[in-house]
């Protein structure tokens, strides 16, 4: 029997340190490890470099002033195109941005996972991604074509945070929705990866109702597993739960103004994860009235 890697969200964050480079899985407002992000918000860890297909994970960390540098192609709430904390943080110059194309982020993570210094891509040539990232270099094909391509540097991570539907105690993790996003790459690109999941199950139960291709992350790439039910809230975690659109609207509305945001944060983010989930339940009771 391999090692038991279960831990709490607090224990996950206890292993992170200020100044680290942290990759966050999911995409936009889809299957984000929000319970781990909330635990991070409650900690003293700061001065982070964050690599993300950005959603409210980026928004919340930016609003809390924890991001020193962001590596991203966008930040969005999907059904609401602009992430309000991200846009506000950019407009006040709150952090350094490494703005890359979506495919460049994918190949940067792939390079890191394959222990390569870079991978060549066509994306970026001719665009201002090259202007705003003077550290990016091109590479010339050694073959007859002689093409000059962008050498996307490896996006190596100190830690990765991802949220999946199921995992076992050993770190084998499973997605049950339609899209794996890039969670396996984030884990492989990181020195330590932490998986939160809706439910921890016995290894033997992982494939009870699903095919083997749902097993996205293998245990050698996982340091810790945290069971965080509804832990992607308010982002989607199909098929366990959809995006909480009413809550997301309330979040976006509150984020538009410092005073309403203070009230919102006090209401939802001043306590622990149980308090958060209870406040969300109360929010919906009030909505239903």
């Amino acid at each position, binding site marked *: 029997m391999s090692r038991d890697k279960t831990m709490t969200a607090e224990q996950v964050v206890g292993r992170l340190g200020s100044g680290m480079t942290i990759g966050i899985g999911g995409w936009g407002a889809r299957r984000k490890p929000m319970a781990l992000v909330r635990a991070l918000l409650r900690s003293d860890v700061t001065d982070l470099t964050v690599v993300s297909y950005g959603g409210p994970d980026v928004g919340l960390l930016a609003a809390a002033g924890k991001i020193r540098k962001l590596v991203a192609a*966008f930040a969005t709430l999907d059904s609401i195109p602009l992430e309000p904390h991200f846009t506000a943080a950019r407009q006040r110059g709150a952090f350094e941005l490494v703005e890359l194309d979506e495919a460049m982020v994918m190949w940067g993570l792939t390079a890191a996972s394959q222990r390569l210094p870079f991978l060549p891509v066509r994306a970026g040539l*001719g*665009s201002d991604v090259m202007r705003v990232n003077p550290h990016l270099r091109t590479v010339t094909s050694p073959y007859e074509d002689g093409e000059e391509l962008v050498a996307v540097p490896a996006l190596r991570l100190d830690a990765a945070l991802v949220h999946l539907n199921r995992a076992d105690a050993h770190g084998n993790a499973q997605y049950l929705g339609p*899209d794996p996003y890039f969670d396996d790459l984030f884990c492989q690109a990181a020195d330590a990866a932490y998986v939160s999941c809706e439910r921890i199950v016995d290894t033997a139960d992982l494939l009870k109702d699903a095919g083997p291709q749902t097993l996205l992350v293998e245990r050698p790439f996982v340091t810790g597993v945290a069971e965080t039910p509804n832990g992607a809230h308010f982002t989607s975690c199909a098929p366990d739960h959809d995006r909480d659109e009413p809550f997301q609207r309330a979040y976006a509305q509150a984020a538009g103004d410092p005073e309403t945001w203070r009230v919102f944060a006090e209401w939802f983010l001043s306590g622990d994860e149980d308090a958060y989930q209870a406040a969300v339940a109360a929010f919906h009771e009030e909505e239903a009235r």
Partner: protein
Amino acid sequence: MTVTRAEYCVVACAEAWRDAGEILAGPMGTVPAIGARLAKLTFAPDLLLTDGEALLTADVPAMGAKAEVVEGWLPYRRHLALVATGRRHVMMGAGQIDRYGNQNISCIGDWTRPKRQLLGVRGAPVNTLNNPTSYWIPRHSRRVFVERVDMVCGVGHDRAAAAGPSATRYHHLADVVSDLGVFDFATPDRTMRLRSLHPGVTAEQVADATGFTLTIPDDMPYTRAPTPEELRLIREVIDPKGLREREVPAA
């Protein structure tokens, strides 16, 4: 039967995918999405469409309805890989676009501290260098059609040429469709040209709403009207709720 401006726009967007063959249509925005569905139901039956998430759908549902037949799987990682195969024609939006077709969806103002942060570059760089790209601008104005974009996300003709053969190899800007007309880059210097006016719009009106000098041919055709069958498909099958009229209100 009066054809609305939005319906001319739908047909103009659909035309971008004529003769496209067996490729993925990547419409962004309501009118392009209706246009792609119209193309698939009429003159471009081989097109592939997605459900907006990770599935390729074989049937053509109404806007907002769920597809019933799935024919393929296209999560983000495969979507980004598909772009590099070239088997896709995307129609993106633009916060700004210039005469060479450089497009900006990242931010307005100085990039280091933008006046207005938008989405970020997203996949515009990879899209424009790898697969045919068109643009949809629902509100044609000098704020969008600018002399110079603040951040080149989608690469235009001048920038691709300056970047060299690897940038131009698969670079293809097709159409720009706005609520006023249809535009392309069929000029000697690959700058933007007015190709057709939507009925009810004048060339002067387009020139006034454009922040750079457009090539405007003397003999300007009008954007073609939908056929009666196309109009029926738009109104009864694809967009019975009339979402198109919200994106392009009656002039």
